């Protein structure tokens, strides 16, 4: 009669958030670290990661703050989508830049 109960362990949640953040920032999974806490009943994610940027003078580059805000919003949306949980915010702290030849999607 009752469907089973789904459980997502904190570790799994953290791993997933790392993968999502790494993808959004365009860096390798191993370079990012993530801490998840509770914010008034919703999830609050703090990401520490370098960020992938196109080389200087490449013209099409948006500002770094815009890039980070976009990545955070993207990660937030993806994480909420994948887990079905309410994600209050994703804070990103950039610890460095990885210069790419072409813009990473």
């Amino acid at each position, binding site marked *: 009669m009752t469907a089973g109960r789904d459980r997502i362990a904190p570790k799994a949640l953290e791993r997933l958030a790392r993968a999502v953040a790494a993808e959004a920032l365009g860096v390798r999974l191993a370079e990012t670290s993530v801490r998840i806490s509770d914010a008034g009943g919703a999830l609050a994610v703090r990401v520490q990661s370098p960020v992938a940027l196109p080389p200087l003078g490449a013209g099409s580059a948006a500002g770094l703050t815009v890039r980070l805000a976009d990545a955070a919003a993207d990660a937030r949306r993806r994480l909420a989508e994948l887990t079905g949980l309410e*994600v209050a915010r994703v804070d990103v702290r950039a610890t460095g830049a990885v210069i790419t030849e072409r813009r990473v999607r």
Partner: protein
Amino acid sequence: MSIPATRIVRRETHSPRSTAAVIVALCVALVVAWVATESVLSLLGLRPLLLAPRGMLSAVAGFPGASQAPLIAVAVVAGLVGVLLLAVALLPGRRARRPLEAEHAIVVANDTMLASALARAAARTAAVSPDAVSVALGRRSATVRIIPVSGTRVDRDAVREAVSAEFAQAAPARPARVSVLVSAAGKVGS
């Protein structure tokens, strides 16, 4: 319920006072027996066991003139014993148990057992782990406290209904009002 059944239920749901009564009666009997023995000994002109009746009376009469420390100590101890005995005599002395309705049997359930059943129902409905739920069962009320999983919302009305249904299923003699409190902060992961 028949008369013996009500008596049995009462005996199970209220704490017995026989221990206190026996201790008090024993103390009174000892004191009376000792005073009687001393009186007889003094009438016969024999040596008293501890204190002759005349000595007892003069000690009691002279006690208000004693120094303050023993006066206060005796007053405090006597007052405490009096309040304690009065409380034991007058308070209902209910145990955390309640009668359930059953056919051809008298069923008295422990509140702890009932509360854990309610907690299980609440955890299932709220989709949280069982240790994120605590239930306090009073005589006429049940309070369910839930720490939600971060990022999910707990449907309080559904939980209240499930807990009420579970409680009604146990068929207690007296209904209880169920209130559900969901903690504002959640716990990450489940």
